[in-house]
């Protein structure tokens, strides 16, 4: 039985080929033992020889893009310990012993208990209904004219259904390209959870703004949401649902989150002020709250005037 396995990584997917005892050739030509179709691989690129004394000898056969072992180009190299990383062209290989340990099996989301949000299909449906309820409530609480069902339905369609649906579709297509699977139900659950989390966080931040008579809570949320929470949520999804490695998941998450995050951050009033350093408008705390919970003490008019004397003008722009 072949004692060596060659792990071949290409386009995010790994495949495994046994390396037979004796001589194994690798290259793009069809007369090789292991054929790699990448154009940066030479027709005959690498030769692996397993000797009877268990030593393993690698020989580079390519003039263009010579073989590298652990990032060092080689002509001939005798391998000491496994695993060893080999690069031929842009294809990354790892030479593994057959008894090389594999990562633990990760359960599919669908096999989790029915109480898990990613378990049963009805969770996605429940979450969609909750999102519609929350969105509808938001519409209701911001309606100051006579209520009309047609207005509510238009709002739900525009702000909730199309938005969530659009994100689900786009991210699902991306996932299909990455891992060759459709996970519509899990994606729907994830997007709904993120939507609900965002709504709750905004509510909390606005009330914190009023409590503290400050704007940093909502500013912190705004930046934190797009720079940390969205990439973090996408990373968690890719690791636990798509079962991608952590590092790759993080990189993909940043890649996916950037086109969402950057326009929102750049267009925010806080970033505009940072970039532009000047605003002709007065940025005062205009938020009002029915509960009227605030930590600032109430002052009388005389005390206000006395404190107001200390107010300096703002900074000039650069």
């Amino acid at each position, binding site marked *: 039985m072949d004692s060596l396995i060659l792990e071949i990584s290409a386009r995010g997917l790994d495949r495994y080929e046994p390396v037979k005892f004796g001589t194994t050739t690798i290259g793009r030509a069809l007369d090789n033992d292991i054929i790699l179709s990448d154009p940066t691989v030479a027709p005959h690129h690498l030769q692996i020889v397993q000797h009877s004394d268990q030593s393993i000898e690698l020989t580079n056969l390519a003039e263009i893009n010579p073989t590298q072992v652990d990032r060092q180009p080689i002509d001939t190299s005798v391998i000491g310990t496994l695993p060893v990383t080999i690069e031929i062209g842009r294809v990354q290989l790892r030479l593994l012993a057959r008894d090389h340990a594999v990562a633990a099996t990760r359960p599919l989301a669908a096999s989790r208990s029915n109480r898990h949000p990613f378990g049963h299909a009805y969770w996605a449906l429940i979450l969609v209904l909750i999102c519609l309820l929350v969105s509808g409530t938001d519409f209701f*609480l*911001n309606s100051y004219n006579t209520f009309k069902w047609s207005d509510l339905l238009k709002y739900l369609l525009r702000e909730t259904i199309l938005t969530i649906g659009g994100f689900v579709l786009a991210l699902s297509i991306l996932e299909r390209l990455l891992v060759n699977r459709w996970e519509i139900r899990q994606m729907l659950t994830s997007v709904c959870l993120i939507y609900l989390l965002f709504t709750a966080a905004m509510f909390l931040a606005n009330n914190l703004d009023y409590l503290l008579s400050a704007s940093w809570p909502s500013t912190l949320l705004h930046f934190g949401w797009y720079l940390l929470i969205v990439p973090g949520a996408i990373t968690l999804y890719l690791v636990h649902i798509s079962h991608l490695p952590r590092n790759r998941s993080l990189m993909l998450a940043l890649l996916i989150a950037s086109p969402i995050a950057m326009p929102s951050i750049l267009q925010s009033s806080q970033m505009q002020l940072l970039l532009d350093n*000047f605003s002709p408008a007065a940025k*005062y*705390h*205009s938020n009002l709250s029915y509960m009227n919970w605030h930590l600032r003490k109430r*002052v009388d008019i005389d005390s206000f005037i006395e404190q*107001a004397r200390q107010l300096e003008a*703002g900074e000039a*722009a650069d």
Partner: protein
Amino acid sequence: MRQGLFAVFLLALFAIAAPAAALDSKEIYQLNQDRVVQVRVLNRETGKKSSIGSGFIVGDGRQIATNYHVISQIVLEPELFYISYISNDGTEGELTLAALDVAHDLALLSAEQTLGDAIQMSPLPPRGAPIFAMGNPLDLGLSIAVGTNGGILNQTDDSRILFSGSLNPGMSGGPTFNEFGAAIGINVATARNDISFIVPSRFLTELIERSTAERYADNVDLKAEVARQVIAYENRYIEQLLASDWQELNLRQFQLPGVISPTVRCWDNSAKLNAVARYKRYQIRCANQNHVYLDADNHFVGRLSYEYYWLESDELNPVQFYNLYESLNKDQIETKPGREIVSNFNCETWFIEVSTQEMKSNLCRREYLDYPGMSDVLFTAALTGHADRGFFMTLIMTGVDFDSALPLIQKFLEETEWTP
């Protein structure tokens, strides 16, 4: 013989006692055409006109009176621009800036040589009397416009006469004459449709009297001088406001300062709501009319405006009401000067007790970068603690000394009363 002498005596007495004959526009034009000039601000680099207006000979015959706004670019860039005049007969010469009265938009310029006979000043004739404005409209040549005296406008702090004639751009700084050819004012602005404004000549007389030098010294910071004059005027104005009795107005449960000065006008500004609105709102807006021209970039300062906004609903729940209330809490100063003119605003928040009610208040301040001591102030106050009613008050002052503005804000708050 004695009878002849007596007749001559009577004739002489009559000649002295009889009033001068009124002149028509043609005669006034001919009388003064050599004493009214075009005033120009020219760019030293290009040699071309940057702004034009009119002026007229006053004082000792070497002085030209005009509007400050005609020559204000000298204040902004004294090295780049210079002032010159051109007479009706084509004579040209350079002028230097001798004195300014920024608050009344006047400037006194000096020539090196005598330019002619000075025009005499005269008080305002009775309302309805014909008056004649001369100047250089649209760079088309010297012209005269006929109208009537509409009286001094007290909403302009008595610094403007209403002229029912047609002033055009280019006539600013030119004289307005009475029927006898004496100047009763200086052309300053138009609102089109035969509504124009004149500065009463007494302000020019005062400026001539207190002008002590032929020109500002080269090391004088003109912007600082402009700032000093504007702030002094605004401080006097605020002192007058604080000393006067304010009219009150009622807006639902509030009794508020209404018209606080003859310079202020208030009007209803309530938006028309559509039939499906489930709330009511009422708005009153008050503003003064005696703005001060600052310079070619900033246009006008000295604005005082205050606005009251009442909101109520017995159909909206508290959360809905406060969402609506918050969405309306966004007043700003309407003018938007650029970064090279003003600093950013700095704002602070207080919760102030006003007549047993709590108001969430914001005070914002920014300063003018080139005019030391001059600030724009924005004060807002919003009623808190009521589930179904709300109230905003906004007070805006531009081009003021910040410390002088605070007593005015204080009085506004003290004169605000809540009726349960």
